[in-house]
């Protein structure tokens, strides 16, 4: 009995001292919801092996309510040590002084930022201060159904395609039958701010001090977008969608082309029984493609800054993490390792994986301002009116411009 007690005491002392040396950090994220939870766990295991003195408590919240919760915990002074932010909300959080300035940590830790994609890294800085590290990025490409194209006798997308070529192909596919459509590219804010740039316009001026929503080029763009639904009907209107999603319609071969994110690849791989491939989105006077990124930031009030930084720099730049991402088909790692890029290109379908990187040459980021969400909702509402044919594109954009000027403050 006595010996047992001694062993017990010694064991608990050892345990306590080892526990005392362990820092636990809290990490909140949204992108590992749904099927990716186990991949994040894998990444955590590798990290904790390499850093035995750090333990990571992961909390995952669905994207729909993530920011509600994040806001509440920040307001309550209970923010996690590190957390994920998508690019659009990142700007607001940085501006409101919630995020830790990472500049000093970057230099003191010796983290080599050249392994990270330059654009992705830049996206999470503001005025020369780095506030976050990129976690993943994705972009948007034109995905098309090769079989449907062949059946309709339409020319496959080429590198020098313009809107006119795209429209022609769409019309041919539309002519196949009443239930088949040529293309799906929704008339809403996200597509709009990008498509105007394919036509030489934009929704804000250069230094973001004024809205330029109702410029003649923009009206022309909106007219083109709306005509596809109302005039030529190569694109289904909301009622014709009948509650089905755009991906659903593509998967059952009722749409020839769809402009959507690279995150669709893993789903389409499983659920599409036909030949499909991707192409860079055609533009009009120039090309413009979407760029989205999720980033990792540290809370200004965190007391475990060093541990938190080790974790986020690991998630951001580590080559094993990147490999896990590629194999899982979980968006793109924001890294520049050549072997990772090769690995990515090898996972097919689609065959033309290099399109993903080519699209980066034409990328446009979301027009982030402090009142980003509000702006998006207002523009969306007016675009809806145009989409339903209730207002002409000119009217809709004029009204949107007026409301934006009333409700949004630009510095």
């Amino acid at each position: 009995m006595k010996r047992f007690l001694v062993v017990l005491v010694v064991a608990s002392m050892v345990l306590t001292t080892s526990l005392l040396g362990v820092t636990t950090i809290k990490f909140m994220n949204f992108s590992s919801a749904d099927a990716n939870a186990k991949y994040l766990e894998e990444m955590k295991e590798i990290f904790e092996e390499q850093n035995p003195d750090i333990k990571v408590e992961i909390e995952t919240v669905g994207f729909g309510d993530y920011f509600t919760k994040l806001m509440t915990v920040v307001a309550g002074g209970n923010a996690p040590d590190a957390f994920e932010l998508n690019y659009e909300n990142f700007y607001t959080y940085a501006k409101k002084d919630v995020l830790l300035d990472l500049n000093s940590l970057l230099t003191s830790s010796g983290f080599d930022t050249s392994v990270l994609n330059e654009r992705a890294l830049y996206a999470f800085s503001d005025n020369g201060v780095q506030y976050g590290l990129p976690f993943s990025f994705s972009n948007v490409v034109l995905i098309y159904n090769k079989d449907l194209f062949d059946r309709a006798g339409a020319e496959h997308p080429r590198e020098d395609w313009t809107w006119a070529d795209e429209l022609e192909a769409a019309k041919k596919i539309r002519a196949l039958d009443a239930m088949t459509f040529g293309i799906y590219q929704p008339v809403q804010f996200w597509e709009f701010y990008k498509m105007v740039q394919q036509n030489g316009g934009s929704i804000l001026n250069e230094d973001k001090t004024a809205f330029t929503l109702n410029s003649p080029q923009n009206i022309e763009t909106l007219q083109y977008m709306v005509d596809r639904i109302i005039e030529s009907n190569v694109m289904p209107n909301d009622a014709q969608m009948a509650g089905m999603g755009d991906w659903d319609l593509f998967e059952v071969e009722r749409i020839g082309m769809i402009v959507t994110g690279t995150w669709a690849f893993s789903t389409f791989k499983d659920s599409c029984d036909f030949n499909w491939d991707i192409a860079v989105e055609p533009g009009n006077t120039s090309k413009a493609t979407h760029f989205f990124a999720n980033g990792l930031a540290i809370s200004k009030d965190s007391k475990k800054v060093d541990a938190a930084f080790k974790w986020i720099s690991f998630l951001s730049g580590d080559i094993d993490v990147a490999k896990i991402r590629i194999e899982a088909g979980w968006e793109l790692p924001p890294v520049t390792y050549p072997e990772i890029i090769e690995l990515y290109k090898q996972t097919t379908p689609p065959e033309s994986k290099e399109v993903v990187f080519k699209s980066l040459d034409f990328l446009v980021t979301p027009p982030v301002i402090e009142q980003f969400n509000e702006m998006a909702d207002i523009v969306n509402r007016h675009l809806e009116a145009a989409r339903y044919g209730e207002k002409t594109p000119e009217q809709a954009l004029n009204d949107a411009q007026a409301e934006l000027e009333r409700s949004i403050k630009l510095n």
Partner: protein
Amino acid sequence: MNKKRRKRLVILVFLLPSICGFIFFQVFPIVYSFILSLTDWDVLSKADFVGFENYKKIFESEEFWRVLINTLYYIVLYIPLMIIASLSLSMLLNIRTRFTGVFRTIFYIPVLSSWVAAAMLWRWLLSPYYGPINSILGMVGLQGPSWLYDKVWAMPGIVLASVWKDMGFFGLIFLAGLQGINPSYYEVASIDGAKRWQKFRYITLPLISPTMFFVLIMAIINSFQLFPQVMVMTKGGPHGSTQVMMERIYNYAFTYYKMGYATALSWVLFCFILVVTLVQWKMQRRWVHYES
């Protein structure tokens, strides 16, 4: 202990749990939120006091009045339909047959389901081209509207879905009220030769009037706070025709980072609900019968 003190003690003990919850989780938040509505707090950084600026902005905004009308549109359609549906349902369920238990469970199922599931179903039911509702209308020669894709018909679509979902809930409450009516009243009336609708009008209706009052108040208060259906079925569209107060409040608070404004909106909403409820409360005397 004398009688008066004993009575006071009893009141205290019986009310204590409720009042504790009230003070900590109602009074404090109410005061806190009212102060908040006088600021421009964006949740993430410091709040600046702006006085009644938010309230002024609300009443001057075109959006507020549009959203208020949308909310009223819903209420005017939903309340009568709901009361008739749930009262009829409860009367049908009050009849004892071998399958009463089964029927009662069946009718409660929509109440238990989540709006995610219900929304999927109703989006299909109300689908202009493929949905059964328009097909049935077509069979009797009517052309169904575009429902959720039409500025005027989207709200009625939401009303239909809401009635379907809430019918069991209020039906259950009415049922409890019906169960409290002593059957001897009906027996005596039968002996006196009363007809069925007479029994309904002179016995049933008056005796469930306290329940009816309760249902009316609850349903109206809930309708002013219409929210989940809008979020999953139309997201406020088309063209803002189904944007309602709660949807705006939620977005201002959690998407636009304008908590001060959102709280002010909540208070304005509260005032509307208060006025309507007070009116109902005053009118209670005229038609609600309590047996004691």
